[in-house]
Structure formats: structure tokens, C-alpha cells
């Protein structure tokens, strides 16, 4: 019933003149997308699920042997894999928190009448328009202890941003914050400009303080859109590969995506890496679900 409503053609349209039926038009739009999705997403997803229970290696001619849950058992018991997970969790928390603070802060600053607001907003968005690999390459130069501009500007001497195992992860997260804060800023700005002005006026009449106005009016109304920004950034941070791979090869910055890449395409442990990819997938889906639940709660309020 609903379908016929959606698929009803405008009688005067060109498609109707050519004698195409509602159904034909619908199929024309949907079938290619579905086919694409099945061939390039669903099929490999299921195929790799099968591989994850075998000892298959793409680099040899040896047939795949069924090993049951061995791959999963090995991965979840491997101390290095757990280290990769801990590192990734730390990275996601630092980087997303940083982006929300910086991005939301910038949005607050921009959410007022200032000259050249459009130009400033556009310029601030430049970092996220660059390629991750390029950002990685030039931040490596910026961080260089001998000739990098960061140490020079901050007067840090020969401070080793990327060579010090304890600092390297923060350095990578800092680069990510620099690159993606504008994204959070953009979404926050959209949220902020949608807050009705009369609420602020009412708060002013009631002599509410600026902190009270922020926590009781601004934040709750921007929260849903801010949550969407956080979901996106968390998923992306979880998958971070190129930038971290280029910036540093410290074991303390080996994120799960990097370990997965090495396992799949350097060691060619196809079966085991499929299992690893599934573990990561389940984790990302679980975390996203928690967020979405929370988002719905926020919206209900």
C-alpha cells in the first residue's frame, strides 16, 4: 500500500510519457544499488566469515583446513593483540574527547556576529579536506626533533614526539584532533544556530548566569547533533590506519587496523586476519549500538 504511494509517477513527467511503469522506475533505482551492495559488501563479508574458521593463507596453494574456533581463541589469548586493543581504546578516547572539546569550543566562538565569519569558518575547515596520508607526512616533518617547526615554535629543543614510545600515541592523537575538530565544529555550529533565540532572551530576563544558560539550554539542545558527531568520529578513530601508519612505527601506536593490515597483507594469514576483522567488526557494532541507544534517550528528553 505504502509502496504504491511512493512509486506513483507524476502523470506529466518524462518517464511517464515514455511509458515506464512505477515499478520499472523503482527497480531502475534500487536494483543496481542492491547488486553493488551484495557483490562488494555482503558477499565478501560472508565469505570472510567462512575463512575465519580456517587456516587459509592466500599466498600459498595449500587448501584451507577447517580449524573451528582456533583463530578466535588464539587472537583473544594473544598478549600483543590485547595491547593493540588497549592502545586503540586509549587513542579513540583521547582523540574523540579532544575533537569534541576543540570543535565545540570553536563552534561556540563562531556562533556570534563577527566580521568575516564565513571566510574564517571555511579556512578552519581546511584540515579535514586534506588526505590522511598527506597529513601524516607533513606532521611527521612538523614533529621532527632536528628541524621541525613545532619544537622550534614551542622552544622544546630536541623533544622526541614520535620516537618516544610514551609520547608517540599522543602525538598521533594530536594530529587527528587537528584534522577532525573542524568536523565536530561544523556539526556543532549547525546545532547551535538551531537553538531558538527566544530561549536565551527568556534566560536573560530571568537573570540566568552564562554557565547556567550553557548547561541548561545550549548543551541539551545541541546534544543530539553532537552525539552524531561523536558516533562518526568514534567509528573513524577506531579504523584509523593511514595517518598512524605513516607517522610512527612505535609498538605503542600499533592500532588494531595496522595490526590487521600486517596480519593480512604482510604475513598473509588470511584465515586468522578474517577472524580478527570479525572481532573488530563486532566491537564497532556494539559500541555504535550503545551510542545510538544513548542518542535516542537524549532525543526523547
Amino acid at each position, binding site marked *: 500500500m505504502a509502496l504504491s504511494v511512493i512509486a506513483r509517477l507524476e502523470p506529466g513527467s518524462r518517464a511517464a510519457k515514455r511509458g515506464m511503469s512505477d515499478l520499472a522506475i523503482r527497480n531502475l533505482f534500487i536494483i543496481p544499488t542492491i547488486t553493488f551492495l551484495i557483490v562488494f559488501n555482503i558477499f565478501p563479508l560472508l565469505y570472510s566469515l567462512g575463512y575465519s574458521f580456517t587456516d587459509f593463507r*592466500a*599466498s600459498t596453494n595449500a587448501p584451507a583446513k577447517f580449524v573451528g574456533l582456533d583463530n578466535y581463541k588464539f587472537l583473544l589469548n594473544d598478549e600483543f593483540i590485547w595491547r593493540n586493543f588497549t592502545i586503540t581504546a586509549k587513542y579513540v578516547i583521547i582523540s574523540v574527547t579532544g575533537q569534541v572539546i576543540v570543535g565545540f569550543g570553536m563552534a561556540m566562538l563562531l556562533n556570534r556576529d563577527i566580521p568575516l565569519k564565513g571566510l574564517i569558518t571555511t579556512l578552519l575547515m581546511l584540515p579535514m579536506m586534506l588526505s590522511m596520508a598527506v597529513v601524516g607526512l607533513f606532521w611527521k616533518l612538523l614533529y*621532527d626533533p*632536528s628541524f621541525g617547526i613545532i619544537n622550534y615554535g614551542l622552544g622544546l629543543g*630536541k623533544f*622526541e614526539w614520535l620516537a*618516544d614510545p610514551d609520547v608517540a600515541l599522543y602525538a598521533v592523537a594530536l594530529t587527528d584532533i587537528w584534522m577532525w575538530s573542524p568536523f565536530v565544529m561544523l556539526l556543532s555550529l549547525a546545532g547551535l544556530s538551531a537553538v531558538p533565540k527566544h530561549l536565551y532572551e527568556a534566560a536573560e530576563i530571568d537573570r540566568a548566569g552564562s554557565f547556567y544558560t550553557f548547561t541548561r539550554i545550549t548543551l541539551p539542545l545541541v546534544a543530539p547533533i553532537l552525539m552524531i558527531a561523536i558516533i562518526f568520529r568514534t567509528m573513524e578513530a577506531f579504523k584509523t590506519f593511514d595517518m598512524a601508519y605513516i607517522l*610512527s612505527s612505535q609498538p605503542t601506536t600499533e592500532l588494531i587496523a595496522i595490526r590487521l593490515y600486517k596480519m593480512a597483507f*604482510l604475513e598473509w594469514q588470511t584465515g586468522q586476519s578474517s577472524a580478527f576483522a570479525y572481532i573488530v567488526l563486532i566491537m564497532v557494532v556494539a559500541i555504535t549500538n550503545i551510542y545510538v541507544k544513548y542518542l535516542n534517550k537524549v532525543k526523547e528528553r
Partner: protein
Amino acid sequence: MKTNFKNLMAGAAVCAMSSTSLAAEELVIFWAEWDPANFLQELVNEYEEVSGIEVIVETTPWSDFQTKAFTEFNARGDAYDMIVGDSQWLGAASTGGHYVDLTDFFSEHNLAEVMAPATVKYYAEYPGNSGSYWAIPAEGDAVGWSYRKDWFEDPAEMAAFNEKYGYDLAPPATWAELLDIAEFFHRPDEDRYGVAIYTDNSYDAMVMGVENAIFSYGADLGDFETYKVDGHINSPAAVQALEDYKRLYGYTPPGWAKTFFVENNQAITEGLTAMSMNYFAFFPALLNEATNPHAADTGFFANPAGPTGAQFAALGGQGISVVSYSDKQEESMKFLEWFISDDVQKRWAELGGYTAHAKTLSSDEFRNATPYNEAFYQTMFKVKDFWAVPEFAELLTAANQRLYPFIVGDEGTAQETMDALARDWEATFKKYGRTE
């Protein structure tokens, strides 16, 4: 719009036709992106003059060489007719059916004697001592050292060194001397440092560096025939070697935590360090005034001997193999026949390639051609290599995971590191059924 589309289709058709007509007279060799690949392109241009067949040397950066090559192999692709593959790949590529068996070609041309013995053993044969050959030794290479002659020959430095250490300052003959000299020249406040070593923990970079120490200290990675590692890689000599490699790390410039051949040559060209470890293949750039302002003051020496007098070096270099999915195997074989001839090998050496051809290698002409050829010639007779088994990449990962935190991150002790590595390797060999 329609005419545009027609033009486009016509263009595509012409492209498709021209590429098929070219394909018959074209061979593609895949290699990593570095100077020797450019020298090889120059060499193979001469093959076109003789045979009319165009040979193209296609390259990719070292960091994805292995990934790209094996992705093509696994897809059974025929993009490359020949490949100048790393010595560690022999096991994976031969058992995987990616390389054409060249044993007959080897015996027909008596290559086991025509090429230097070490190169045949490490670049061509798999499994060890089996008499099965999969590659033609093409680019011989090993790790050597460059140093700043002007710093070493400065009278004031020489006097100060002699007073401190009780012997004359000269290119080190032993690892003990290497450590002394590195310590002596390490002066961070003058922006001068002792030594540049490999520390990049991706693929085999840092492992090659540590191998130099392990081999010269008289230790081995393991028994290549029984796959026994306990008692080899964690022997007292190997542990001592690792400890001294870590000591060397203390004398490197700041930020020396992800360094490989590019950075180690920069250490010399930028005037940062007194000595620098690198493959011989990268030394031509150090003698070039255009790329190295200190070219006139740069000297070279072979990897020094260890405490017991043993002297070895880690092997680099590659052999050239025929890809079994190529439909131009016959043409490739003809090309290889041309490539191994005496004249071509001599020309290869002249262009800057490190030939593995025994006759060319031992000729006075070759040995005196550059300041480092003599060191190269000597090194090529005392090289050792990493495991060449199909699961070499897993062994490398384990080595990187264990060695890097100790050398750069100062975690644990050398003994703990090597014991843990021995356990990892044992588990891997067990997994593939090589040991009980």
C-alpha cells in the same frame, strides 16, 4: 554530448588495440623503487637493441613491494613477467607455485659456478641444499658501513681518542672498536652523533641491523635444517649482540626511532653522524657530490668482526625469477640467457648494479672501480640471511614485536627479549609442522 561519448569510445578502442599489439614485444620486470632498478632499466634498454623486445622495469616503494608482489601472485595475475624478489620470498613463492622452477636452466648454464656461491645459496636455492633453483642472482647486496674520513683523520680527534681509549682512531675492525668510536663522536651539544643504525620495525629493516651484530658475534638465528631456535637466538653471544646493538642506539641522533636506508644515508649527507650502517646498494649516492656535500670525505668499511673474531654481514639483494602466471615465459628465459652472459654482467656492474657474477666480481677492474667495491667483494663471501621459509613474515613480525621495545623502548632485558623471541619462533615452526 553524444559526439563526446563517441570520441571517448574511439579513444578507448585505440588504446586497447595498441596495448595488445605492444604486448607481444614487451616484458615487464617488477622491482622495488631504488637506484639499482634505474640501472637495470638502462641495462635492459640495450636488450631492446639486440632483440627488438622492449623490457620495462616497473617499480614500487620498498614498503609495499612485498604486499604488491604477493597480491599479484595470489590473484594469479600476469602483470609481471619477471620479478626481482627478495631472498626471503623464495620459500613462499616457490611452494606457492608463483615462481617457475629454474633448476634446468641453472644446470644448463652451470650457474652454480658462474655466480658467487653465497648468492646462489641465498638468492636462488630453496629449500637449502636441495639443488632446486628458483631465481638467477641479479643484485648482490649486503650491509656495510660508511664513515666520515675527515672526522677520523682530524689530528686533534685522533690524539683525544688515543688518550681516552689507548689505541689509534681508525675504521673499526671489531664491534668493540665500533662502540668506542660511536661513543667518542657522540656529542649532542655539538649536534654531532656517533652512529646511524636501522631501527624501523616494519618488514626486515631493524632485523637486518640486529642480524649484523648477531652473526658477527658468532651466533645464529637458529638451525636452518632442524628449525631448532632455542640455544641459538637466545645464546649468550646473541644476547650480547643485542645488548651492544641497543648501546649503539644510545649514540644515534635524536628521533632515530623509525629509520632505514634513507635516513641512514641522510645521517652522512647532513653531517650528523661519524658512521652509518647501510646496504652497499645505497653507497653510490654517497660518492655523488650532487647528493652528498661530504662525498670527498666519505669512506667505507665492511661489517666488523665480533669478540670471537667471527665476521659476517646481513644479506640484502635479490634474484630475478620468472612468474609462473606470465604467458611470456619463453621470452623471459631468452632474456635471462642474455642477462647472465659475461659481457652483460660486466656492463651491469659498470652501470652501478652489484653483479653476483663470480668472474666479474673477482676482476681487479671491478674491485678497484669504486672505494666500496673491495669491501663489497669481501663481504659477499661472508654473508648470512634471515629464514626463507614461507612463513618468514610471521617470524619477522615476532622479531619486530620483541626486539623493538627492548632497543628503542628500553623494556625488559636482552635475555628476556631473546628468550621470548625463541618461544615465538618455536610456536610458529610448530604451527607449520616443521618441528614436533
